[in-house]
């Protein structure tokens, strides 16, 4: 004998109403614009995992140098003056303790056309470093 899974009677009406409302709503949206509500994927979801504890990293020690040799940029920003030389970055201690010009890993500072952003921790176009 063939068996069929039937919906409990008391749920039939609300389900039909819900689907009707949803269909009505979506069709109205589709009329006014391309419907772009995302489609649920059948792909398996990754399992929830504990957020791993990560080592706390203190901020880098940056030197702004001395003297007035800092480069000036068109947007009003400046670089620094490290070891008496223009630096498009900051003074950072190297392994021997000597201060060298660097921008968060970019030795020698940022290339022309970029500035060193302490907010983004990187060389970026000048407009990305402004406020």
């Amino acid at each position, binding site marked *: 004998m063939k068996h069929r899974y039937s919906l409990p009677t008391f749920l039939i009406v609300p*389900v039909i109403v819900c689907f009707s409302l949803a269909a009505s709503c979506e069709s109205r949206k589709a009329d006014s614009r391309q419907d772009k509500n995302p489609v649920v994927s059948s792909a398996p979801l990754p399992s929830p995992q504990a*957020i791993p504890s990560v080592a706390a990293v203190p901020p880098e020690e940056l030197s*702004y140098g001395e003297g007035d040799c800092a480069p000036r940029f068109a947007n009003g920003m400046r670089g620094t003056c490290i070891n008496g030389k223009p630096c498009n970055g900051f003074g950072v201690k190297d392994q021997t303790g000597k201060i060298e010009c660097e921008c968060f890993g970019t030795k020698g500072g940022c290339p022309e056309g970029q500035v060193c952003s302490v*907010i983004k921790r990187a060389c970026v176009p000048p407009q990305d470093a402004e406020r």
Partner: protein
Amino acid sequence: MKLTKGFLNREPRKTALSFVVSLTLMVLAGVMSGCNDNPGVPVTGAEKAADDEQSETASACAFYKGENIVVVTYNDGTDHDPTVTYGPNSRKVIAGASLMGWSYSKNKGQSWTYGGKVSPPNGWAVLWGDPAITDDNGAYQYVFMSNLAIPNSKMPANGIDGSVIVSGADSYIGGACIARSADGGVTFQNYQCVSNTVKNSVPNSDKGHFYDGGSMASSNAGEIFAAFVDVTTSQIDVWRSPSASGQFAMLPPPFPGIGICSHPRLRVRRADGALYVAAQACNNSVAFINRYINGSWGQPVAATDSGVIYPNVAFGGGLTLRTGPQFSFDVGAASNENQSDAIRFLYTRRDSKSGRLFVTGSFCPASLSPGCWGAPEWGTTPGNLNTPGDQFNPNVAAWPGFIGIDPAWKSSFLDRDGSVQNAVTLRQGNLAYLPNGNRIYLPFIVLGDKPVCPDTRGYWGDYGDLALVGFENNIAQFLVTTSDSSLGCDRRWDFDSHNQHIRGVVFQ
């Protein structure tokens, strides 16, 4: 398994019932959330001719003389005056400039009244945006809002040409100013400015550290909190006033020994008055969270996996949008007695395979112990949904529930799905569970295909806000406020674009 004709035996029937109930609830939720034909209303700039701009929002809900008043503050360029002048490649700022403007609504966001601007107080030359706001949860007629500020001592005599950052953490900005309203947000007056003047290796640090971002919150006891990222020290400076008429004093650092680079976010748990602060670390963009309760901080906890800080979003045709903080959280009703998910995050990550940005979730217990958990089912995590573009600028707002009014967990984000050039869609969804305990996230359109109009730096308002504004039929209502260029984009200069206004939409 033996089945009886026309009926299910117990276990399959239970499963089927569960499925049907789940489906019904999902569809109901979808209908209620997704069928939003409300295009919202202009919070600012309803007229096309208006040659002024507004952007970046923070919102709060107050109560004064029997009226609920919703207040939105934003970077306000209304009625351009000589204190901020723009050219195609230039911006000149002179003393007296203020971006601290606001609007208020007495009908739950159906229409708005422009409130005005607060002028810089004595000793301060410029109020420079990054708005934050909170009502006073101890006395609802009080509303506080903050802006970054330039002290007289750092203000060049001839004004500022171009960037307000000089070099790195050396900025003309040297603190923040807080204004207070005692009439539910209808009028504001300067209240107090806050500044960290501890000298370090950054030039001019003794004249006030470079503050960026801003977030405010209040406890039921009436404490007012304000927080900023102190770029000079790579820390979050949290300020506390014991009451609506008290003085703000800086709390100990919430993230000692951790270099912090992002804007902070503050939230207060209504049940116990605990203050939570979260911000992203410089080195790995992990959002850390800490709790201030009974007068002291706990231990910082990693609340998210590695995310992104201020990513640029590339559109077709070379247009790029810069963005603000890419995480948000709130404290609300947990799904279980252990309170294991009383804190829920939505944050932005970049998919290493496709390079696209997506928003994803995590949750933490109210105690923050033993730690937090990933919730990839929330958001547009790859594998969840068909969301091929970039999703970013997440916001989370919770209503913890009360007698007769169910809790709510609402979130929103922007979606550059690429189907319409130079446009984004604002979506919202619940950080929800199915009855069987599985997490579920179904985002729906709030505002579809909004044209973007950033200046050539990419600035189009770094962030918007999502806030509880009331209830209808015992269901929580939320207001989302976002940048609005629906009047067209006819000018894009280096520091200015037109049209750029604020639009607000209320939804359930």
